[in-house]
């Protein structure tokens, strides 16, 4: 096999997968500076599981050099889509877009067996698009948990008999909060004090029923800072899960719907408290670039999207903030730090809370393995990365982990629990909310669930609430 310098075989025309441009592969000059920052490459040392290797595969796929074989599917599917490589890439390769196109092509060519297709359809389309159904599903799960069935399933090990990835789903299942917390937020939450602006809050799909407390806390701290918060009740899912999961068509539909809804809300910004949604909505402009009716509106809306830390971190918080005397460490969710390049703002926010000590976490911006539903589809790699994350967390000696994304919270909490640690994992809005409440001058009704209360030092025990 003599080395060659022949021209690479290329198809004519632009490089595409599933109708999505992957021209970005040509920005990769193969320097390899991304390698050591890729979690899967760090774990495996195999070039196919590195950003550079995957780009090479995507390029070869689009150029018709290789087909979508089992091994190519395996390596592309092992990508977390954490986009850490984008942060370090000097060439500016739009990696997230490339891997999403590749995953869409995989879904097209390999929809899987009927059961998988059914589950996928059920989760990505039916549930995400119909909040009422999602609420019904949550209510059923709540019953499953409170009548003791879950405990029975877990103790008996019967979960292992479930097909496919269902056992992993079961293990990660968070405690579904009571009906009061699952109830939608009021459509308008007035600003406290001098009004600064009117913003909309994305309450999310899964977020709304599982982590309603985060949404309530977000609305409260926004109000405390002088923002009027609109919560359009007709808002649905932003489509991020569909886009990341390779369901491009539906992602586009959902984006159009979200644009309609938030345009009508007439707000200065759309505030998001989940990392994947924020990163995805900021990408609406590109997603709808070829839709004449939506292209410009999509750009405009995308520009108004703000992660909660980014939004509040621009200027000092409006006081008074009460003390939250504990030591915490901060985990950067991938689609906040890499997807949206928000790194200093959350730390700035935490630094303003009296009594709160923040210790830096080693590899704080490395994926915890949650990555959307990665922990369910790739449990082995997800677990390896989770162990890595948990070990770093335990080394800090922090009494709580603060982060900014529900997926990370579930994953890290499960990891800590598996290590026998009771350290709770909190959303940054919960910590801020607590600081406002700690001052004792809150005007908002007390509606937080037990899970969202971080007990003060020394007994920080939220794990009991998480593990039923």
């Amino acid at each position, binding site marked *: *096999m*003599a*080395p*060659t*310098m*022949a*021209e*690479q075989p*290329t198809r004519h025309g632009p490089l595409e997968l599933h109708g999505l441009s992957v021209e970005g592969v*040509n*920005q*990769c*000059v*193969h*320097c*390899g*500076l*991304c*390698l*050591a*920052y890729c979690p899967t490459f760090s774990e495996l*040392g*195999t*070039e*196919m599981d590195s950003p*550079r*290797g995957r780009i*090479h*595969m995507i390029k*070869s796929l689009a150029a018709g*050099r*290789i087909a979508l*074989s089992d*091994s*190519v599917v395996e*390596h592309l599917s092992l990508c977390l889509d954490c986009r850490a490589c984008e942060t*370090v*890439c*000097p*060439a*500016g*390769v739009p990696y997230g877009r490339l891997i999403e196109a590749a995953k869409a092509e995989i879904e097209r060519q390999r929809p899987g067996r009927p059961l998988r297709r059914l589950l996928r359809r059920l989760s990505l389309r039916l549930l995400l698009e119909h909040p009422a159904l999602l609420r019904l599903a949550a209510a059923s799960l709540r019953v499953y948990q409170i009548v003791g069935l879950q405990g029975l399933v877990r103790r008996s090990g019967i979960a292992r008999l479930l097909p496919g990835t269902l056992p992993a789903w079961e293990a990660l299942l968070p405690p579904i909060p009571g009906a009061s917390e699952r109830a939608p937020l009021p459509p308008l939450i007035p600003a406290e004090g001098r009004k600064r602006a009117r913003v909309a809050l994305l309450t999310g799909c899964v977020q709304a029923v599982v982590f309603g407390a985060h949404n309530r806390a977000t609305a409260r701290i926004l109000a405390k800072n002088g923002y009027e918060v609109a919560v359009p009740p007709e808002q649905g899912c932003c489509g991020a899960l569909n886009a990341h999961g390779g369901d491009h068509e539906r992602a586009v539909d959902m984006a159009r719907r979200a644009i309609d809804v938030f345009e009508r809300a007439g707000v200065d910004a759309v505030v998001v408290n989940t990392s994947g949604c924020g990163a995805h909505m900021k990408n609406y402009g590109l997603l709808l670039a070829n839709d004449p009716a939506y292209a410009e509106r999509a750009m405009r809306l995308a520009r108004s999207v703000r992660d909660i830390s980014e939004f509040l971190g621009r200027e000092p918080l409006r006081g008074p903030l009460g003390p939250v005397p504990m030591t915490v460490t901060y985990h950067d969710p991938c689609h906040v730090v890499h997807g949206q390049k928000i790194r200093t703002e959350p730390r700035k926010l935490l630094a303003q809370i009296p009594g709160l000590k923040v210790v830096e976490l080693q590899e704080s911006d490395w994926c915890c393995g949650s990555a959307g539903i990665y922990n369910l589809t790739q449990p082995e790699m997800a677990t390896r990365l989770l162990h890595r994350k948990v070990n770093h967390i335990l080394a800090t000696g922090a009494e709580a982990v603060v982060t900014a994304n529900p997926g990370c919270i579930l994953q890290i909490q499960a990891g800590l629990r598996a290590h026998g640690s009771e350290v709770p994992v909190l959303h940054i809005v919960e910590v801020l909310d607590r600081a406002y409440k700690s001052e004792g001058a809150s005007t908002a009704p007390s509606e937080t669930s037990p899970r969202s209360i971080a007990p003060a030092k020394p007994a920080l025990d939220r794990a009991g609430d998480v593990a039923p």
Partner: protein
Amino acid sequence: MATLTDSRKRELRRELETVVSPGAVLSDPDELLVYESDGLTLFRALADFVVFPTSAEQVAAIVKLANRESLPFVARGAGTGLSGGCLPAEGGIVISLMRMNRILEIDYDNLLAVVEPGLVNLHLSWAVGPRGYYYAPDPSSQQACTIGGNIANNSGGPHTLKYGVTVNHILGLEVVMPDGEIVWLGGKTRESQGYDLTGVFVGSEGTFGIATKAIVRILRKPQAVKTVLAVFERIEQASGAVSAIIARGLVPAAVEMIDHLTIQAVEDAFGCGYPRDAAAALLVELDGLTVGMEAQAERISEACRDNGAREVRTARDEAERQLLWKGRKSAFGAYGRISPAYMVMDGVIPRTKLPYVLGRVNEIVATHGLRVGNVFHAGDGNLHPNILYDPRTPGEEARVVAAGAEIMKLCAAVGGSISGEHGIGLEKTDFMPFIFSATDLTFMQRLKSAFNPTGRCNPGKVFPTRKSCGEAGPVAYRPHPIEEKGLAQRF
């Protein structure tokens, strides 16, 4: 070169799996594809297997197996090399050392560490950093490249100017020889008896064997560091300033030059603070004792201003310094912002020839209808003209190679060399006769055959195998003139 039948391949795969583990052997063509090139995409070659050993014993067993089967083999680290040095030029087995990346021992008192070859260069400095130490050789790819690859290429880096190259920081090596024997070269002491085989091995580009452990020096971090950025309107002024700095007896830790086109790329990438309208900038770093540092920095500023610098400033804090270095060290990758591919040349010239050579380089590249970005170790006279091109344009690769050859000839003609730190690899084999006589090359071949008598360890590298370098397409073996004259023998 043996062609393996499919059934033989399957048998060999099973054997390799017994040596390592089932998850540590690749033979699927789609997987081998991503190993077809390193940081230099101009050359591609496919292996039959990629194997991931975790110990010297496993490496030795793989090497013995390869010998038994008369298969060539080559070690590979992160694959960030820029000369095709780790390509399986004649097929066979790629031995990836990425799963041998542990730090086995750190001896702060004796200023050394024992590491495995797959360890990422920067990770060593991270490991010893909290105690106030670091590993000095700092190739620009140090965030990804491995110590093993650094040893193979005797890598340098910006701080080479003051601290020397990799060979100056390696005390001893455990090596799997090309016949599969495991030997130690050098050791933990500063001086060793007998031949300096460590010195011979470092820089042998994987043709003398495979290092499986390295005893490396670690240094105390300097008490103080000062980083000066000087901005010039003309590139000759920057060249003049480099000469002036050295001529005035100043010994900076690094003197790096970055030209206009490269500034655009790195500013697009990370917004590092280089002025976009500058023709060239110099990044000068001083390190050492706090006492006298201020005065030295002032003398450097003076040398720059005397040569026409329009602005000279010192990095205000560590963050600004890091950002400037980030720009410098990411420059090659940043070319992706302005071009789909680049080929970097690694010529070394006497520093005094900088203005002339830089001018000529620009002319040569322009003659071939191409663009060039320059970012390099000016203090060492180690040039890195990066020829930008688009591999999709028919014929462009051939023009790049032709321009590269002219640049190499130019470097040799002014009394320089064809490689400072990237190695000869596959890329520069045909340029070797520019700087070495037939006798020199024969002597080197004899040394190689002492280590690697069968030639199976990383074949096709370092020595010229082709008549000219402008040809494209599969490279067929043709005897080199020096072989025809009986001066050299191809093993």
